[in-house]
Each structure stands twice: as structure tokens, then as C-alpha cells.
């Protein structure tokens, strides 16, 4: 085997691994060729160093990326809906006249179903309490799980906002009195919040129950956000 072929094998060994036979051939060559031995060491070091090239954080890590994606998706979906609606309207216009086409081109208003909340209903999830089932689980892993859950909601177009609250006692304000959270008779146990979109209270509850917070034994206070006309 010549040196050129040996270098190819060295590259294969780094990028794909070698079977026994090719590994043996390479070893044999390298033993008798100091130049290729040196080259193998250099390529190996370079291959190791490649892994150390930093990956700058995305400006939209985790939930921020998912929120952005949810917004993009919605914008595109609406655009397509609009195009479809216009197409439907123009077909209807041709088939059955202007009046019908005009009606179809109006933004669709769904008839109200008794007991059903409009699809744009928003719910606040207050993540409360301790997480007894999370003891011993590294914080990193917990953060990843909450982020992944939020990201899933975001990409599904369900997430409106989400923040982790700082682990400090906070302040309680009433009239002109400001009470430090540490001395308040009722300390806050809210660790963070999510605002989500759902069709009904039951659906919002189903989403809330799928969160890692519930799995780890925390409590979620679920409230529908009032929407004023």
C-alpha cells in the first residue's frame, strides 16, 4: 500500500471506522512509515480539535425558538387559509353569483357552541409547589424537560408566553404597605408560569396534566384568562 492510500484509510478510520482487515493493513504500513505515522497523529489531533469548535447559543433557545416557530407557522397557515378562502370565494362567485361569493369571502365566524370556549381562549398555568418526585434529578435535566415541553406547545401553536420566576420571596403589595415575601404570612410558591391556547377548559387541563410539573409532583393552578370584547 502506498502512502496516499494509507492517508485515505486514516481518514476513514476517523470518519467511519475500519474493519479488522483494513485496520491491520493500515497498522502494518504505519509501522514501517514514520511519515504516515506522523500524519496519523496530526490528523487525529485535528479531528479531536474539531469537536472543540464552539457552537454559539441560538438567540432563540428552547421556548423562544418554539414561540417564534409557532408565530411563523400561524402566519403561514393564515396566509394559506386566506388564499384558499379567496379561491373558494372566486369559484363560488363564478358558479352561483356575486352575492354567494361575497358571503364566502367574509372572515369565517363559527357559530357558538353552548359550553364551548372559542379556540382563541387563553389559559394561565401557575406552576406551584415543591417537586417531591424530582429529588435527585439534576437541575439541568429538569430545565431541559420543562423547555422541551414548552417548545412542543410552542411549535404546536399552543404557547403564548412562558417564564420561570426567580427563586426569591418576592414582594407583597397592598395599599402602601410592601411586605417582604419572607415575612409574609403566606409565602408564594409559584415557580413559573405558562400562558397557553386551548379550545376548552378540559383541553387546557389535559395539556397541563401532560407537563413535567405534574409528573414531578408539583401543583398547577389553571385559570382561564378573561377576554374583553
Amino acid at each position, binding site marked *: 500500500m502506498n502512502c496516499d492510500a494509507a*492517508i*485515505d484509510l486514516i*481518514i*476513514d478510520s*476517523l*470518519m*467511519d*471506522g475500519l474493519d479488522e482487515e483494513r485496520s491491520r493493513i493500515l497498522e502494518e504500513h504505519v509501522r514501517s512509515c514514520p511519515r504516515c505515522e506522523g500524519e496519523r497523529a*496530526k*490528523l487525529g489531533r*485535528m*479531528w479531536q*480539535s*474539531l*469537536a*472543540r*469548535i*464552539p*457552537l*454559539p*447559543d*441560538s*438567540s*432563540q*433557545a428552547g421556548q423562544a*425558538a*418554539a414561540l*417564534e*416557530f409557532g408565530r*411563523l*407557522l400561524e402566519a*403561514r397557515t393564515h396566509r394559506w387559509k386566506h388564499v384558499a378562502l379567496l379561491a373558494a370565494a372566486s369559484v363560488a362567485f363564478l358558479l352561483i353569483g356575486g352575492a354567494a361569493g361575497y358571503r364566502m369571502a367574509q372572515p369565517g365566524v363559527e357559530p357558538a357552541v353552548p359550553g364551548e370556549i372559542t379556540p382563541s381562549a387563553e389559559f394561565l398555568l401557575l406552576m406551584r409547589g415543591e417537586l417531591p418526585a424530582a429529588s435527585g434529578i439534576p437541575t439541568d435535566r429538569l430545565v431541559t*424537560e420543562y*423547555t*422541551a*415541553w414548552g*417548545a*412542543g*406547545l*410552542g*411549535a*404546536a*401553536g*399552543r404557547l403564548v408566553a412562558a417564564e420561570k420566576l426567580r427563586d426569591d420571596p418576592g414582594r407583597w403589595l397592598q395599599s402602601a404597605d410592601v411586605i417582604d415575601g419572607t415575612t409574609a404570612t403566606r409565602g408564594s410558591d409559584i415557580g413559573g408560569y405558562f400562558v397557553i391556547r386551548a379550545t376548552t377548559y378540559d383541553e387546557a387541563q389535559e395539556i397541563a396534566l401532560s407537563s413535567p410539573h405534574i409528573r414531578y409532583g408539583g401543583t398547577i393552578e389553571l385559570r382561564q384568562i378573561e377576554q374583553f370584547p
Partner: protein
Amino acid sequence: MDERSDNELMLLLRGESREALGTLFARHHRSVYALCYRMTGDTAVADDLAQESFLRLLRYKENFDGRSLFTTWLYRVVRNLCLDHLSRRKRERRMQERLSLETEDGDVDGAPDDRVELLERALYALDPDKREVIVLSRFQGLNYREIAQVLECSVGAVKTRAHRALRELRATFQKLEQEA
């Protein structure tokens, strides 16, 4: 964590499940972003391309037949987007050159202070078709067979590209080291 496999989620997605899309997004956004960054070297561009990748995933979901690994298929989508972006950028640069609007690259005169930084410069100096083989192997952990699936070419073609790419990277890196 959702225990369903990527392939199962893709099936649900074909049935228009937005939740399945959400889970796939949560699961793969970071590695898609990483691939976009390694290909373009620009965080803002990588952010945009990563978002666009998932929109394409949704648009082309019917093309996923489940025979290859989901990530292989996804990386193919991402890779095509990155190459489109890079060739657009190249065209724009050429046009700027013609109009003599090009300004000096900010990082050209910045003295490299360590080997990794030099290596990064050498990596981004490679043509995208050489860089992608290294990126898919080193950063995304794909073997030749998987890379061939992403690039839609033979394993032999991947090998040839890998050999050329790593040799060129080594030569450029060495040159930069000597200059430093």
C-alpha cells in the same frame, strides 16, 4: 418526555397533528440549529434556517416514507436549505464585488489566538460541499452510509469527498498555523 419514536410522530404529523410537530421540534431543534450554524457560521442565519427547516418538514411530510432514519431525512431537508442559502450568498457577494461595494471582512486581520480558532477558520474556508461531509460526520455523528443517504449519493462518492475534504482542511489549517 414523549416516548413515541420520530417515525411514529411523522405518521401522526401526516394526519395533521400539530402536537406531533411540536414534539419533533422540541426534540430536534437544537441539532438542526447546530447543523445550520456549522454550515453557515452565522447564528442569526442559523436561527432563520432552523425555523425554515421545520416549516419545510411540514410541507414535505408526505415525502418521508419511513424507510430511512428520520434524522437522515431531516438533515437532507436542512442541508438543501443551507446550500440554497450559501449559493444565494455567493451570488450576492459576486454582485457586490462587481459593484465594488464589498468591505473588508472584519475577522481577516484579527490575530488568531488559538488552534481551535484557526481550525474554525480553515473549516469555513472549505467549499460547502466539502464542509458538509465533515460537519455531518464530526458534529452530527453520521457514518458514511448515513451521510450518503443525506446527500443522496453513493457511499463511494461520500468517501471520495471525505478524503478530499479532510486533506484540504488539514492543508489549510497547516497554512494558517504557519502564518500565525
